[in-house]
Each structure stands twice: as structure tokens, then as C-alpha cells.
């Protein structure tokens, strides 16, 4: 396993795949709550402190809700703090559910609380890097072991304390390490594919190089053939410069220079918007006074390009209303996209969610604000 695949999340490598895998997160969030409720009800006759048991269930419910909300496609990426918070809540819930039993005789089956921690550790696997998953899993397992040890010291256990500790640690360790293996395996598959795809793309580009070069040259030669080549041609044949030649040369030089200055100043974003929206006056749609579009990375360009094309060809947003502004910030640039929504909220949210998921990973600080019918999407990136 390389350091790269250790420190990167599956979500960063494959935002759409992670979005696809969200039903698993939902299943896990609902599953732990059901498991907790069912086990609490089944154990109700041995529970000495019902309030503690209810508090434990509430903690599990809040951990589930946090996971569901924080992994949503329109939210900021699921961070390390959220990870610690969700698992921390569940460890606390396990402590409370253990305490709720008081000094009652405890069965190994009572360790459902650690099963809940394990399931959650696994559900978080796509959102956090492998190293963090392993660390949190081990720390949570140790915490679960300590809680079990404390509980076994105050209750009459029919099993040796060491077995009780191992039994409580088993689901946490097995599932969290299993989740880490899942993340690590996907990250490695991804890295392998990426390498192969890069090579293939490079070969493809080499093949296309010739075609593009010919077309670019043809464009130039067509422009030159109109006026410049006849002039230079006749001059070299005549060998004499006339005042009229001088005037024409100056005129052509100026028009070519003008064309080149325009080309030098043109940016890729304007080209993409012009191609997608078929707009003649791109200046109204895109405003980039500091020419910051050029500072985006290839991934950022790709994600934005795909999103622009989706908006231009879809009917979720009013095409005429779309405006894109890039402004300077202290550390980089902020892109602000404004548009008028022309479809129902659920329709634009579900159609655009995959694009937001990708934008959110390649850019920083994606913020979506919607006040019907206007939609504002902001995201930032670093500039050199």
C-alpha cells in the first residue's frame, strides 16, 4: 500500500462511486438504530436504569442522523472531526447502555453496543482515509474493552473478564479493520486504473496531435493566404517596396497582432461556456476580470466543464439566467454561479447532485444556497 492510497479517501478518488454507495450508509444508519431499539426492548427485564438505556438510544440516533446528514452530496466532505464525533457518540452510548444494566448478570449477547460501533466504523469507510479508519477503529475497540472491563468488575459475570473484553472488542475490531480494507482496496484499484488510463490517454493524445496540429496550421494558413501571403509573395518577386506596400504591411501586421492578442487573452472557461450555451456574447455569462480561470487544475477544469455542459443541456435551470463570476480572495479564487431554477426542487437537486458531489471534492468550500427560484453555488480554489 502506498502512502498516497493511505492518506486519500475513496470519496476523493471516486466521488460518484461514493454517492452511488450511499444506500449502504443509509442502511447502516437505520440498521444500528433498529438493532439498538430491538436489543433494548429484548433486554428490558434486566435493565436497572431505563433512563440510561434511553439516553444510549438517543445517542445512537444522533450518531445516525449525523452520519446521514454529513455524508449528504450537497454537504461539505465528511471530515475527521465528524468521524470522531460519530464514533465518540456511539462509544458513549455503549458506556451508558452498559451502565443501564447496573449490577445485573451480563451475557455476552449484551455487547450489541459494540456491534453498533463496528457497523458505523464500516459505514464511514468510503469517507475517510485508511490510516484514520484503522486508528479510530483500534481506539474505539480499546475504549469498548475498557468499558466492558469496568462493567465486568461491578457485575456478576459468568465469563472470565478477559473473554468479555475480547467479545466486546470483536465486532469493533473486525468491522473497522474490514472497512479499512475496503477503502484500501478501492483506493489501490483506483490508483492502478488511473495509471493505466493516464498512459492510454497520453498515447491517444499523441495520435491526435498530428490531426490537431494540421487543423491549427490550416487555420493560420487560411488567414495568411487571404492577404499576407500575396503581399509577401509579390514583394519578394518584385524586390521593391512601395508606399502602398508599407501601408498594407502595417495594416496586416496590426490585424494579425490584434487577433493574436485576443487569442492570448482568451480563456478556456469562456470557450467552454460559448460551446455549451452557444452564446455569442460570452462576456455577459462569464466574468473573470483577474483571469483566474487559467489557475484551475486539470481535475477542476474537467469537473466544471462537465457541470456546465449538464446545465446547458438539461432543463433544471433557466439557461438564460446562468451567470458565472470568478473573483479574487485572499488565498485564491471564488467562483460564484447564479441561476434561476426552472424545475421542482427535488428534480434539480437529484439531477445536479452528482455534479455537486464531484465539484465538492475537486474544489474547496462548496456552498449551495437556494431561495426559490434563485440558486447560488459558490466554491473556491487555490491559485499559485
Amino acid at each position, binding site marked *: 500500500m502506498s502512502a498516497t492510497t493511505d492518506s486519500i479517501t475513496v470519496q476523493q478518488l471516486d466521488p460518484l462511486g461514493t454517492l452511488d454507495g450511499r444506500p449502504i450508509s443509509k442502511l447502516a444508519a437505520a440498521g444500528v438504530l433498529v438493532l439498538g431499539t430491538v436489543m433494548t426492548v429484548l433486554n428490558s427485564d434486566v435493565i436497572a436504569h431505563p433512563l440510561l438505556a434511553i439516553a444510549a438510544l438517543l445517542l445512537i440516533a444522533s450518531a445516525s442522523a449525523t452520519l446521514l446528514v454529513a455524508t449528504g452530496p450537497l454537504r461539505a466532505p465528511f471530515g475527521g472531526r465528524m468521524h470522531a464525533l460519530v464514533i465518540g457518540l456511539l462509544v458513549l452510548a455503549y458506556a451508558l447502555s452498559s451502565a443501564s444494566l447496573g449490577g445485573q448478570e451480563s451475557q455476552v449477547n449484551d455487547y450489541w453496543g459494540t456491534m453498533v460501533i463496528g457497523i458505523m466504523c464500516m459505514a464511514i469507510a468510503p469517507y475517510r482515509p485508511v490510516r484514520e479508519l484503522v486508528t479510530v477503529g483500534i481506539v474505539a475497540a480499546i475504549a469498548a474493552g475498557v468499558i466492558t472491563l469496568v462493567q465486568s468488575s461491578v457485575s456478576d459475570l*459468568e465469563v472470565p473478564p478477559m473473554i468479555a473484553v475480547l467479545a466486546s472488542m470483536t465486532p469493533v475490531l473486525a468491522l473497522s479493520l474490514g472497512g479499512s480494507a475496503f477503502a484500501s*482496496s478501492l483506493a489501490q484499484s483506483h490508483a492502478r486504473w488511473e495509471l493505466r488510463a493516464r498512459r492510454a490517454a497520453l498515447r491517444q493524445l499523441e495520435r491526435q*496531435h498530428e490531426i490537431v496540429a494540421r487543423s491549427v*496550421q490550416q487555420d493560420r494558413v487560411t488567414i495568411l493566404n487571404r492577404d499576407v501571403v500575396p503581399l509577401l509573395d509579390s514583394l519578394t518577386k518584385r524586390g521593391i517596396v512601395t508606399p502602398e506596400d508599407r501601408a498594407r504591411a*502595417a495594416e496586416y*501586421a496590426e490585424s494579425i497582432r490584434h487577433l493574436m492578442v485576443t487569442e*492570448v487573452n482568451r480563456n478556456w472557461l469562456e470557450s467552454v461556456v460559448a460551446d455549451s450555451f452557444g452564446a455569442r456574447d460570452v462576456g455577459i455569462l462569464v466574468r473573470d476580470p483577474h483571469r483566474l480561470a487559467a489557475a484551475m487544475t486539470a481535475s477542476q477544469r474537467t469537473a466544471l466543464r462537465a457541470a456546465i455542459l449538464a446545465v446547458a443541456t438539461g432543463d433544471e435551470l433557466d439557461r438564460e439566467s446562468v451567470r458565472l463570476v470568478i473573483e479574487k480572495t485572499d488565498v485564491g479564487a471564488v467562483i460564484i454561479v447564479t441561476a434561476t431554477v426552472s424545475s421542482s426542487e427535488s428534480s434539480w437537486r437529484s439531477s445536479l447532485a452528482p455534479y455537486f458531489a464531484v465539484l465538492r471534492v475537486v474544489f474547496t468550500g462548496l456552498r449551495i444556497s437556494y431561495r426559490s427560484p434563485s440558486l447560488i453555488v459558490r466554491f473556491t480554489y487555490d491559485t499559485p
Partner: protein
Amino acid sequence: MSIGLPAHLRKQSVSLAFAQTINTVSFVCFALVLAGVLSLSAGDSTLALWPAALAVLPMLVTSWLANYYRTTFYTVAHIVIGGPATYWFALTIISELQPLGAAGQYLVNVITVGLMLVGGTGRSVGWSLAWFTTGLVVAQGAVTLASWQLLGHTVVPPGVILVYVAATSVLITLRMSQRGVRRVQSDLHRAARDDELAHLRFGLEATSAAVMHDTVLGHLAAIANAPFGAINPQLQREITRDLEVIVGQEWLSESERTAGDNARADWQSSALNAAIAEAQEMGLAVEVTGDLAAVSQLDARGAAALGPAVKQCLVNVIKHSGAMQAEVAIFASPEEVSVLIVDAGKGFDEAETGADRLGLRQSVRRRIELVAGTVQVWSTPGFGTSVMIRIPADADANERLVPRSAVE
């Protein structure tokens, strides 16, 4: 960051990742069972649990091998060895721990789950399901046999069945959820291709603009400022030569195609030497110092960019500095080749030069940046100008078509 796996590979990768997850869980189960048996033995010396510990060892090994190699052979070997080992383990635990109790039940359950969770080859969901159904049957069969032999009855623990149902549902959900965003994924891959093509075209346009600037635009300017009458024979020769190249040959693909090969130009035939010679023909006294052989460290693309860029700097000295002397110093490190062009002319303030001044931006800066080089200009009005051009020596560092690393 990247744009994710294409749909056809995603299914396979997810199946593989799931297999590795299952194998890891299984390995952890065996390790914890071993720890449990050892701790029980340590706690009570009257218990003869060492045969159970011995039974876990081969399963740890085959589980690791099955995960490492992920072939049918190792998976089958794991199950074939694991079945009897589980039977042996259950036999030992049930006979030693009378009654079995929660501790014994825990150990037997965990080893059953461990053997049931066989990841297999990770080829497809169907295979994964088949593997852990086989695992469940073999493991539970072994435990049932041992229990029936010693106790005369057997109970299938609900926990094991629950784990089986949970693992199966996760696998099926994973499989079902791999179809939602395929269209978006292919849009994204197309956008990546378009971006690369646009980048390629952008680079070629910039190169062609630089060529146009140095040839056609230069000639037109020279004609516009030429005295009436007979044309300068030198200019006439250059125009004829350039017209032939620009209209008649594939100059753009020519200059780029040599980019990838390892052709090394020595100083005499280098574009830099030619550029300096041309500037000298225009009446500029150029003093060349430093490590002349260093230019051979550049690849063809780097060398092709350096010559015209230095020429443009020297032309700028003639046109704008008011001085007719310049120094070109060449030095190299293993990583890069640097060329410093110094004049003692009147200097300028780069910020105050017109936005339409293309020479420095297009012919020098853009051209050098296209080969991953850098250009620095130090100029103070009244104190001359120094232009430092740095180009990476390593051919790989010049890779600009796709300037992304494997995993960004």
C-alpha cells in the same frame, strides 16, 4: 483527485474490495479466537485447550494466503483445511468447557463466522455469495457434527445466521447501487478528454502564435518600416524561406513531433547558437559565456523553444534598449539549463509596457512556459535588463501535455 472509475471497472473493483473486507474480518476473527483460547488457558491451567489453539493456526495462515492470492485454489484450500480445523476446535472447546457457557459459545460462534466469511476471488457478486454460503455450510456443519458427537444435540446460533444475512444484504445493496450515476460518470470522462484536447490545441495554438510572431509579423513590421525602393536582400531571403516553410510544410507537427525523442543538439547545431548568430547579423555584439555544452542537456522540445526565445530577447535589446551589446550566459545544473540575457541599455518597467506588446509575453514567456520552463525579468529604467530563462533538463519534466501525476 481524479474523476473516478469508469462504470465497467467499478463493479469489479467493488467486488474485489468486498472480498478483501470479508477476508480481513475473517482474519481478525481467527486472531481474536486465538487470543481468547490463550487467555482461557492462562486463566485456568486445568483446561487442556492447546489443541484448539493449534487448530486456529492453520486457519490464520490459509486465511492470509487466500486474501493475498485471491485464487480459487487458495480459497478452496482455506475451506478444505478450515472445515476439519473448525471441527477439531469445536470438539476441544465443547469437551473442555463443560458446560459450554457464554465464553465457549462466543469462541465457537466467532470461529464459525470466521470460516463462513470467505471472500474468494472477488470476481463477482454471485461468486462471493456462493463462497460464503459454502463457508457457512462447512463451518456450521463442522460445529454441528462436534456438538452432536459430544452432547447428542446441536443448536444453530442465531448470531451466525444474522451475520450471514447482514453480509449478504450489504453485498446485494452494493451491487444494486452501482448503476445510479453511470451517465454522469461518462459525461465526466468525456469532459476529461475534451479538456485534454483543448489543452493540446491551446498549446499548439500558442506555439503557432509564437512562430507567426517571429516570422510573418516580424517581416510585416520590417516592410512597414523599410525605406522605399529596393528591398533589403537579407529580408528578402528570410521572407522567401519563411513563406516556403509556413505555407508549404507541416511546420507545426514538425516542431512538436520531435518533442518526445531524445535527440540532443550539440552547441554548433543548436537553435540557441543559430539565434545568437542571427542577432549578430543584425548588428548586435553578443558575448557568449558559461557552459556552452549545457544546451545538449535539453530535449528537442526544450531546445526548440530556447533558441527563438533568446532570439526574441536579443531582438528586444536591439529594438528597445538603445544598447548594441548584450551578454548571453549559459549554465546548467542536473535539473535545469539556465540562460541569462543581460544588456546595459535603458531598461523598462514590465508593468508599464503595453498590453499589446507580444514579444516578451508570447515569444518568450509563453513559449518557455509551454516546455515547463520559467522566465524572470529584472529591469530598472536606466540600469539595463536581465532576463533569466530556466528550462528543465529532464525530458520527463518537460511533459506538459498531461501535467498530472498518477494520483493527484
